[in-house]
């Protein structure tokens, strides 16, 4: 049998996302995988359903094509379940616009499929799977059909909370593969009837040759300033830390990098607070992470957080909330990092104090963390992608 993956090179691969322009976790992964597969000889097209006003200049360099199916943003989803909604002219108009936009996007996507031989489409979000449902992917009994790999970048708990589970069960059941971020999630979704569940971690695009210095006395936060990322929890935890562990906190500072709708409020909240610095978005996440020795990740919800993996690749001691299977897959409490309770500032403060108190502990955790995320190096993840693509093509 030929080496898995190599035989498939040259095949068309279409990677779908809601948008491919934003600076976000999904978009970074999309472009990383696209670039990697293109570099290995696949004919890759990255397609976003709608454009985003802030177009981040991802380094495409002509290796793969980038398409936007719509020329403007998708109209918002409307709730038209009740009779009074159905009778409301404005709601009906919005619904019409939304359906029209979806049809238009589906039509453009179909043209993209029909422009060449069949291949593999990777639908990175549930909305894209639902769009695929409006397209003709070929006779399912034929070898000439398009293969579909569906992805879900969050955990089962998040899917249950948000109602995505039912969407996933409806839209992804017949995909050739349904890729989750962790083995734990794959088993959980399989138990919910999705027999095609498998798992695929996100790739680390860069692998730092040198780790961070464990002696550094900086705790870093890197993320969006939204409630889901927990910046308020971190600020409260820092205050508790300074009050309850003054000796440990001596000489340490918290540096927060990011952007988001709550930035002004966060800046206001830390005003007068000792040793917290709020900075804006950074173009060099690895660089700012390397300045510190501890990463604080107080998120309330995560999938497989890239920032955590990147920090671990630098050998940082990471203190993260036990909010998802992705975090649990990376951080083993006391071995590769510290796990704390979700939404609990006191627990986060205690976790931070634990690593801040000992350089040796930071060093040990960092070394083990770097070893843990070694499997997420881009080349290894791309190897796994190729194996998955080869498997779906069989």
């Amino acid at each position: 049998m030929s080496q898995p993956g190599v035989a498939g090179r040259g095949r068309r691969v279409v990677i779908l996302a809601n948008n491919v322009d934003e600076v976000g976790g999904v978009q970074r992964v999309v472009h990383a995988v696209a670039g990697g597969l293109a570099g290995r000889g696949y004919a890759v097209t990255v397609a976003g359903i709608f454009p985003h006003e802030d177009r981040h200049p991802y380094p495409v360099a002509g290796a793969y094509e980038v398409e936007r199916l719509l020329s403007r943003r998708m109209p918002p989803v409307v709730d038209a379940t009740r009779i009074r909604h159905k009778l409301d002219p404005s709601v009906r108009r919005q619904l019409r616009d939304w359906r029209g936009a979806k049809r238009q996007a589906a039509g453009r996507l179909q043209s993209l499929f029909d422009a060449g031989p069949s291949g593999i489409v990777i639908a990175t979000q549930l909305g894209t799977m639902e769009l695929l449902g409006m397209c003709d992917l070929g006779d399912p009994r034929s070898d000439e059909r398009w293969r579909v790999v569906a992805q879900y970048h969050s955990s089962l708990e998040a899917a249950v909370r948000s109602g995505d589970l039912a969407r996933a069960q409806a839209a992804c059941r017949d995909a050739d593969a349904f890729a989750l971020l962790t083995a734990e999630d794959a088993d959980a979704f399989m138990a919910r009837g999705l027999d095609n569940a498998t798992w695929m971690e996100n790739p680390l695009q860069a692998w730092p040759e040198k780790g961070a210095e464990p002696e550094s006395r900086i705790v870093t936060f890197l993320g969006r300033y939204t409630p889901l990322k927990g910046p308020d929890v971190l600020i409260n935890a820092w205050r508790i830390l300074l009050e309850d562990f003054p000796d440990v906190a001596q000489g340490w500072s918290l540096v927060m990098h990011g952007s988001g709708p709550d930035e002004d409020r966060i800046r206001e909240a830390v005003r007068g607070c000792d040793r917290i610095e709020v900075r804006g978005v950074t173009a060099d996440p690895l660089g700012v992470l390397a300045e510190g020795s501890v990463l604080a990740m107080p998120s309330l919800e995560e999938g497989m957080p890239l920032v955590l993996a990147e920090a671990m690749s630098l050998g940082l001691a990471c203190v993260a909330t036990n909010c998802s299977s992705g975090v649990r897959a990376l951080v083993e409490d006391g071995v590769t990092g510290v796990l704390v309770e979700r939404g609990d500032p006191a627990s986060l403060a205690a976790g931070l104090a634990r690593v801040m108190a000992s350089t040796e502990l930071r060093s040990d955790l960092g070394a083990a963390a770097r070893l843990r995320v070694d499997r997420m190096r881009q080349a290894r993840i791309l190897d796994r992608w190729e194996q998955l693509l080869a498997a779906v093509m069989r």
Partner: protein
Amino acid sequence: MSGESAPVSRPDVTIVVVTAGRGQRATLEEDVLRTVDSARMQTLYNLEILLVMGREADPDSASASGSQGLVGRRLAALDDQRLRLVQHETTDLGALLSRGLAEAAGTWIMFCQSGDRLRRHAAKSLLLAVEHSGADIGCALTEVLDADGIRRHWRAQGHHRGDLDSVAERPELLADVQVAGKLFRRDWVAEHGPGFAEGLPFPEEDFVLGAYLSARGISVIPQRACVREEMPPSGPGDWDWVRLSRDRVQALVRTDVQLDRGGTSSLVSERIRSVLADELPVYLGAMLEVDDASAQAIAQAWQAYALTCDLAQAACLAPALRIALYHLLIGDLEGIRSAMRCDRWSAVIEAPIRNQDGRQVWACEHLRTGPSVQGLEAAWWLDVTAMAIIGAPVDESRPCHLLLDARTVGRTFIATGTTEDTFSLLARASHASLAIVCEEGRTLCSIPLQVVLGEPVAWKADAPWIWESDAVVDPGASGTLQLVLRVDGRLNRMPVRTPASRAPRMPVRLGRGVVVSLGPGRDGSAAWTVVRSGWGWRTWRLSSGVMAGLASLLHRQALMLASRLATALPARSVIAFEAFEGRAFTGHPRALSEVLSQERPDIRQVWSYVDRAEHIPAWARAVRQGTLRHRLALSSARWWVSDGTPPQVIRKHARNRWLQTWRGQPIACLGSAELDAPMTRRVERRPPAWQVRRWDLLLSPSQYFSDDVVPALGFTGDLVGQASPFGAAVLAAADDPRLRERLGLPPDRRIVLLATSGEPPGDIPGLVATIGSRAFLLVARDSGISRAPDPSCGFAVRDVTASDDWLGYLACADAMVTDGSVWTLDYARLCRPIMLWEPGYQSLRRVHGTFLSLPDLVPGPTVRTPAELIVALERWLEGEPNWPSDLPQRAASLARIAGPAEPSSARRCAQVLITGRVDGRGSS
């Protein structure tokens, strides 16, 4: 489709489809094509689909070439190069499978029969698993779809993911020796495997068992690979149980030889256990359906085989099955049937149950004189202690009412039957009737019974149906025919039973234009479904949809107008109560109602109900929800007191005031408690804002509730703080020495309450089997959905989710197992052990978050698996729990969080209702 001589170049997998000849001739093509289509739809494309068809038994039959010719033409029309049709001379299943094995060209091979449906990812999932592990066999689950459309996994034990070096690592797999749902390395199995037994029954079992024993690796995956439909019998005798029994025994003997040669002692033991627990009950159950001669033949076939087994394995059987097995071994046909009715028909009891040497025993005629079998005495076989039958209260007793005959003469329904009156219910009954009862427990109509005491008791119904005054029949309603007995003021309702083969199938006119169809139901019950729902509904159906909608709208408007007019009437001193959405008389509303009835009997109380009004006390008026009386009562009431949510259509007027109470105290977060995290389409667990705005007062049982739960609800009104009438009632009930007796709980066992937010922990039948003789289990779900316990648990488990006596059950539980149930804190006030079921708690925590961190608080151990739970309970029962030394401090701490529940709580709340003032504020 390619012909017989041209297989595709080496495909990864060959799917062999053999014609099982199970369907009627007219459906054979459909079966075959459905299976072939499911194979073509596989996500693995590089397949060969090999259809092996046997020639018809009668080649001169006009339709002999019909099926094969038709199938061949249909397959050719598909134009799929992967398809190949092979015709074989005989229809013997073993021969067809062997032919398929010989003709297969693929590296791997799967087998299925016509009518099976392969799940889309079956071939690929199995292939990837075996390629990854290097195993010779891949095993996935097979789903069986029965005649009622219910899906179950076929012998799912052992089917969790794993790569095994040999089957000895997982003996439970031996229970599944069907060839469906498995993938075999073709070259290896062709060379080393035992092949398919030709001309013998169940040929695939030799093959699969031999493959298991000699495989160099087995890869087990948790996915489902195949769906198989059980053949529905089209009528009595459609399955030849006698022939099946003989064939099964023959196959078992054959494969036993194979196992003795190639297996280990653990495999042999597991095999015996599987036969006794999984196979034999099917055939013993069939004896309920067949005539005596057939039953005798079945029994003879199995008796001979059972005596060759190590019967000490029977210890793992449920008590009723063990009793049936004993009667099989000693050749008592009626004894088998009696025990199998207990096993199959929701644990109905037909034999006297006695206490003997501290054990409860099935006191049939063999108890004293029955022989030992393999050194095991009759008392061992007939032990039913784990079922906790003795002392069951009237409403829990399960006599077996057998329906012998039923017919209609005009409007008169005539039914006769007998009852083994083990519990002397009919002898003590003040009233006995045959009733038409809905699924939800509502009685529509009934006929009084004529009872002739004897052994067994004979009863007869011979009259037109008498309707309950306010009974309404919904189209599509269904239920069972039940005997309703009133004994000592309590009701016992049990469906009448009859074997499916002898169940009456007939329309029955109930009066009021209602016609139901009587037929066999589940568990041997006589069931009914509505055929015509009466004049009122027929009128609706006859009119157009618009007319019906208009009439419904007018009806609602009339109710609203009436309730508005009612507000013009003078306000009355009425307090309207509701608990558990009208399904029970329980909780804070009950405690308040009781206090009010004592202190202010002049205040009129109205309780609303959905289906049953029996639980509503005499001092209150019962009104059915959705009726005009209900509307008028709510409109004129000064106070509404409820622990649920009122229907949206009820308009609250200025003079109505709402006192909202809560069922228990929530541990899991509600909505906005999660730090205002906005999420799209999140699952809202708190009432909507418009609902919360309607509350005038909220009962807060503790400081914790006030600090954490109230803000999460978004309620900004007045609190009746630190008051828990229900909690006070629980504490008072705990001191009642006659509580257990009143609830019909055994006095000699510890009571364990499994109170969970989701499903109860672990394996309840396993729990009962281990500790059932020492502990009695109560099950309660926060969801409010009651489920009948597994009949194999007998009387050792009681579902008290929707019980009116919930207060009493909570008070008398000696220990609780919880995952964060809303009742945790109310129970904590009793300062008794609480064990934490961690998987449920972690699930709650991850999905919703929790206000409290229970592992640090509960006065008891945290258990992670069903096995750990059993160990913890056993240690507690033995008095050596090995628990944390700070248990008393934890218990006290949790009780403090739960809040005080002093006896004056209820009076204080009642004062609020009477005066309309909260702590000196507010107005009446």
